[in-house]
């Protein structure tokens, strides 16, 4: 599978997004581990619902942050989704 614009990612069932009330940061919790996300990654992670494509997510984020370059955002989304895939945090297709 190639992770690019048309790809529709879904966060794995084992992964749970949780606000860490001690730091105010969002974490992805999964078996025995946790991954702390920055604000940009949090905004992406919340959209990994198995419905929206990477291109669609980038489009939405560009709209939400007016003036942000859509292409640069899509690159960020691809990079983050690739990282999640390597960690086994995407639902298997």
């Amino acid at each position, binding site marked *: 599978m190639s992770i690019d614009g048309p790809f529709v990612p879904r966060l*794995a*069932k*084992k992964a749970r997004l949780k606000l860490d009330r001690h730091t105010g940061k969002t974490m992805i*919790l999964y078996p*025995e581990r*946790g991954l702390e996300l920055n604000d940009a990654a949090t905004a992406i992670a919340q959209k990994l619902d198995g419905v929206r494509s990477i291109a669609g997510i980038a489009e939405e984020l560009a709209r939400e942050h007016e003036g942000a370059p859509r292409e640069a955002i899509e690159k960020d989304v691809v990079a983050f989704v690739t990282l999640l895939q390597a*960690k*086994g945090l*995407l639902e298997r297709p």
Partner: protein
Amino acid sequence: MTEPVSEAPRPYTLIAELTYRCPLRCPYCSNPTDLAAHGEELGSEDWCRVFGEAEELGVMQLHLTGGEPLARKDLEVLAKHAHELGLYTNLVTSGVPLTQPRLEKLAAAGVDHVQVSVQSATPALADEIAGYAGHAQKLEVMRWVKALGLPLTMNVVLHRANLGEIDALVALAEQMGADRLELANTQYVSWALTNRAQLLPTREQIEQAALAAAPHRERLRGTMDVLFVKPDYFGTTPKACMDGWARRFVQVIPDGRVVPCHAATSITSLTFDSVRGASLREIWERSPAMLAYRGEAWMKEPCRSCDRRAIDFGGCRCQAFALTGDAANTDPACSLSAHRGAIDAPVAAERPEERRYLHRGR
């Protein structure tokens, strides 16, 4: 209780050893060897309070373990409370005293992930190691876990009798649909130290097993997480045991005492405080046993001036105590330890031909 340290580290994981009772009798069990000397188990209310206090301290991951946690009739109550606190709840089980309806209840209560131990890919050997005919049941349990859509870890403790089975163990984990496979070489404390001559592999076995695991790790990346945990006896640097003493992990044992790791009560020079008499925060921040080896102030040479002191924290305190008599000594798994001979001698020794384990008691 002494004065609090200004900034105690934040624990992320609570290891709740709910009971030492277990139907299995594995010869490498991490439970204490003096099981009979331990006090009564905490009740449900105390455990629920401890979970809340742990969440207050910053804990996000909870391990419900033992012994066999399913031996507790209140496990569903505890899992539900943990879920309500937002803790990511890992059930660490042998799978043996489990039924499908009970697993469904636990899933409904909020268990997030199930880890099932497997002793070998060969049923007869698995049952021999466990001292109990439970292998077939474990396979059933793993199927139930996946059927419920829960993430599954298959955990295997590796030693001389099963190190040659890496390919078969990976195949079994794939067949079960495991999300994670932990291939963890035995750590020689507690029962494993008692059975060390029986369990300790040869260097060739370790090297071959590591070579066998590597391609599976690559092949399954993104599908199944394959962890191969190397044993410290065959290296030159010690393990960063528990990521440092009382740093990221806090553990409560069945009778309510707070410890930094499974084997810590083997360090008889320390006294561990109980949550029956104080809050988890008080103990975590102030109890002498938590402070004893936290940070670097306790270190002697060669740890004190070592470049790796913030990487491996001087290794395992329990191993230092068991093999050198002083828990503040450098872990003898370090090549710089004056006691390295305590590791090298059993590695160099002839291995007994006949398999004869001293199984843990019930």
